[in-house]
């Protein structure tokens, strides 16, 4: 894709916006539509677009597969870890109310954390699948 000038320019403009929008959906999921799943997919779509336009090697340099593979597990670990933290603080598994003194604030914190875990895993898995499929054909 060395000669697709329009595609390259438009992608360069769009990718930061896509990533920003992904973060917005991630952290604004409590108030508007969206959440970890959608945000993860949108974020991954930005990276995948980069890979499609600038080549798989460039994408691999920006987002190394080793880190992505680590993030796949880190998201699930964060989610499950929030559950265990609730247990250690005297509540039930995945009971966010005990994380902070105020139960409602605890719910907020818990939801924010697990949504971040969801988003991390989803984005990382999508990028991994893309790397897997795209790297296979060469």
């Amino acid at each position: 894709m060395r000669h697709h000038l329009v595609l390259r320019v438009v992608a360069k403009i769009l990718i930061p916006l896509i990533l920003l929008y992904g973060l917005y959906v991630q952290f604004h999921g409590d108030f508007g539509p969206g959440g970890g799943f959608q945000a993860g997919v949108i974020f991954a779509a930005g990276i995948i677009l980069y890979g499609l336009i600038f080549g798989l090697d460039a994408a691999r340099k920006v987002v190394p597969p080793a880190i992505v593979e680590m993030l796949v597990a880190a998201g699930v670990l964060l989610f499950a870890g929030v559950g265990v933290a609730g247990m250690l603080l005297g509540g039930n598994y995945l009971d966010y109310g005990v994380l902070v003194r105020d139960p409602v604030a605890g719910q907020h914190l818990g939801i924010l954390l697990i949504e971040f875990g969801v988003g991390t895993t989803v984005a990382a898995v999508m990028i991994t699948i893309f790397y897997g499929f795209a790297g296979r054909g060469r």
Partner: protein
Amino acid sequence: MLSGLYSLLSASIFVQLDAVDVAFTEASVGAGITTILMLGTLALTTDWERTPIKLQVFPILVVLATGAALIYGTLDLPAFGDPAAVANQHVVPRYIKDSGREVGVPNIVTSVLASYRGYDTLGEVTVIFTAGVGVLVLLVTGRRGKPRGKAEADRP
């Protein structure tokens, strides 16, 4: 390409049904990522199906029977938006009434998904995690720790 369009159309249907979160998911996953992965798969394989050797009767019978059973099952579903439906009677009124006080998140979908049904969401994330690990094991060749060129040369 058709499946992408189909996903986009169903996303707009979900918006019409006031299910914005579902529409969001459908648009980003169905129309976005799935289409890209589909194209990636097409690039790996060919876009021509091998012509079948003979007419397969048994598979089509199974498909028809399953489809008929599914359609028969929908006859028992409550009418759309029926307030007396079981799904609208059980925990939904409690979520709508109490989630503002108990969870304090304006988006009830988020509070149900992340808090009331946290276990289910954890299960979903585990499914995605498993899918990712499966792809890693099956598709990703070339081991880390070796220089790329060498890993490339190792491949049969």
